[in-house]
């Protein structure tokens, strides 16, 4: 099987053969729910970090007993799966102060399912990047490390952390190479494929993933570039946007996605973690300073500017800003993105969506109209 097919297969399911093999060896898996969790700490504990999604969730009736229709469908879908024991392969679940929806999923699980996971942990993440904020985040990460050590009887040494950082930096570097290929006039893979590739890396051991990425990069060298597209697109926006099928709809209509700023995409690997003597502080500094999402209000202008820069670098024709309904953080971003894209003369399409891709008729109509606009 080609590396691309293997990676796509992994991304499209909740569990995967590598994860099952890992579990069958008696090893632990810890789920986490936001890109602000430094996975390296989990990896250094010899545990597999697993970025939680709710692949295939088609209803949220159990979650809706607790959450309401004003909570985003990503958070409700994840709660649904937790209540339905779909995450029974997880040995722990880690939340951060990401958003109002996810922080309450943590509260609900603590109240009604306190024994589901041996570890249910919450990491406080500052909303600034000052030295004091980095110190505070470092302390939080130390507590997380201690929780892992106590719960699973492991020791996380500085050396193990440095090793983990180096493995992850290799992943980041390989993914950057992959994204670089997408910047060419005739990229060798679609946006939907690229999203699948990135998603696969969030649920399998990183060493294995790095091997697959290397193989993929080799394969892509031989692959014919895509030339039959109508317009090049950059995807901006939200959390909970992890469905390759959604991207596929845009690409089936002739839009080619060549870059993104999403938290299931480029934001996690654009910057390497710079290691120094204190790996925990290095992680805190890097994660706080990496390309941000709107939970970092003071980085607003930087975020919007980075979309403009990306459009230029990728020679994109337009930006699709997608966000989940009831996601406040990304919702507010609309004001700035709309104005600044207009000022920069960059065509923009804003799409509000649900976690699960369904009822695609209207979506197709809007994308079609946008592509026509771009072609004029």
């Amino acid at each position: 099987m080609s590396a691309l097919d293997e990676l796509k297969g992994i991304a499209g399911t909740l569990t995967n053969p590598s994860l099952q093999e890992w579990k069958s060896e008696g090893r632990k898996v810890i789920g986490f729910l936001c890109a602000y969790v430094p996975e390296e700490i989990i990896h250094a504990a010899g545990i597999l970090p697993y970025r939680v999604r709710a692949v295939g969730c088609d209803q949220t009736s159990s979650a809706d007993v607790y959450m309401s229709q004003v909570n985003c469908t990503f958070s409700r879908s994840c709660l649904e799966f937790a209540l339905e024991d779909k995450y029974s392969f997880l040995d722990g679940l880690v939340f951060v102060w990401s958003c109002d929806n996810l922080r309450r999923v943590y509260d609900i699980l603590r109240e009604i399912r306190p024994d589901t996971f041996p570890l249910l942990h919450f990491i406080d993440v500052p909303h600034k990047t000052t030295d004091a904020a980095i110190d505070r985040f470092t302390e939080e990460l130390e507590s997380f490390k201690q929780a892992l050590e106590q719960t699973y009887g492991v020791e996380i040494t500085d050396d193990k952390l440095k090793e983990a950082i180096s493995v992850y930096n290799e992943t980041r570097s390989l993914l950057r190479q992959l994204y670089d290929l997408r910047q060419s006039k005739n990229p060798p893979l679609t946006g939907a494929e690229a999203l699948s590739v990135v998603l696969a890396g969030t649920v399998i051991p990183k060493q294995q993933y790095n091997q697959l990425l290397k193989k993929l990069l080799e394969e892509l060298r031989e692959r014919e570039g895509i030339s039959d597209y109508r317009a090049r697109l950059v995807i901006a926006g939200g959390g909970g946007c992890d469905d390759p099928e959604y991207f596929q709809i845009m690409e089936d209509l002739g839009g080619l996605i060549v870059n993104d700023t999403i938290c299931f995409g480029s934001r996690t690997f654009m910057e390497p973690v710079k290691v120094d003597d204190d790996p925990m502080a290095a992680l805190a500094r890097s994660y706080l300073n990496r390309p941000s999402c709107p939970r970092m209000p003071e980085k607003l202008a930087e975020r919007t500017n980075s979309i403009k820069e990306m459009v230029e670098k990728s020679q994109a024709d337009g930006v699709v800003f997608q966000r989940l309904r009831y996601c406040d953080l990304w919702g507010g971003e609309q004001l700035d993105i709309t104005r600044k894209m207009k000022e920069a003369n960059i065509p923009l399409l804003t799409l509000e969506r649900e976690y699960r891709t369904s009822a695609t008729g209207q979506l197709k109509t809007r994308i079609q109209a946008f592509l026509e606009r771009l072609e004029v």
Partner: protein
Amino acid sequence: MEERKDIIQSLSDNFAILKGLLEGKSDGVSVFEYLGPYFDKANATQQSGDKLAWINFGVMPELFWAMDMTPIVVDSLTGAISGLGEAMKYIDIAEQHIPDYLCSNNKILLGAALAGDLRLPSIMVHPSHPCDSNMATYPHMAEHFGYPYYLIDMPYFRNERSIEYTARELGNLIPVLEDLTGRKLDFDKLRQVMEYSNQAQEYVLKLNHIRQQVPSPYPSLDMITEYGLLMNMAGTPELVEYLSKKYEWAKGKVDKGEGHLPEEKYRLVWIYGAVTFDMGIFNWLEREYGAVSVSHMNNNWTMNPVEDISTLDGILKGWAQKIENLPMTKECGGPWENYLNAAMALCKDYKADGAIFAGHMACKSNWAIAKMVKDRIQDEAGVPVLNIQLDLFDPRITSAETIKGMLNNFMTTIMENKKGRGSPC
């Protein structure tokens, strides 16, 4: 073309309208006698080109008073706009630019600013608690309109370390304000402001105790509208004057065993929002059912006065502790136990017969725990809870009539409950 207006000026000019809407419905000393002059001052500040700071309900105004700025709590501004029935046009304007599901409180402010009906501030300051909607609006407005912005970053969990961190954040705000105003902070003035603030807080705690008495001498409406006064005017001698008069008046009634109503039949606590677009609902409950609203989460000021006001360090720490425990910041920020414990305490301490969760639809974090809060209160305090889905500022989502219909049904439950138990709680 519709003439543009200046909202703060019009609140100052026409405060009597708002006062008139509620006139005769409160006794003792009126909140509005003090809120009116406050808006006059805010108007005078902006007319003179002096510094007006927008802050939100999570900040507290003392430092701004000490810096000779006029702080205006944007939430009281939007509340006043809503009370005058003018919120909807601004919500509609905002929804052309941001999603409808963001908080209408934020949308009113944005809409009014986009309409050009609000003079922009010299700075906006707000904390990272309690909600995403604030974080998704205030920095964006500052960027859009080009005024300075300061975020008070606050830790998620509250403890000794969080106070230190927040105190540092507050300390870092001082040079920002000094640069903005071109004035150095006068420590003696700050201490004086904190003294007034402490005196006011002493009265607030005593008044909490007063409202816990059966019968409560306090008018429901005053109980909730005081929130605007405390948020904007903490640190001023005027607030101390209002609260001292109010306390003397209320205590006099308690001493005589007099309640606000000739017969207090039921006691209600509001464990979430107030129906801001129709505050008359509080009076309607009194009139229709003899039900006095004795406490409200929005007005749940439980923090102690700042202990050490002799040093800047002491003041900053005390201020940090205070803002961590502000109403709604304390409950809605952080883990859900903060909310549960506060709601439970309101039910128990105020001897409630019923609790109303007037759930603002935009509050994702609160709606996610509404059922759990309700279940726990009903199970552990035996107090029935009504959850209402509404928009506090926008009657188009759930009208006052619909809300009253739900309250009618709820009052029937309370009556039956009370008959069955034979005791208020």
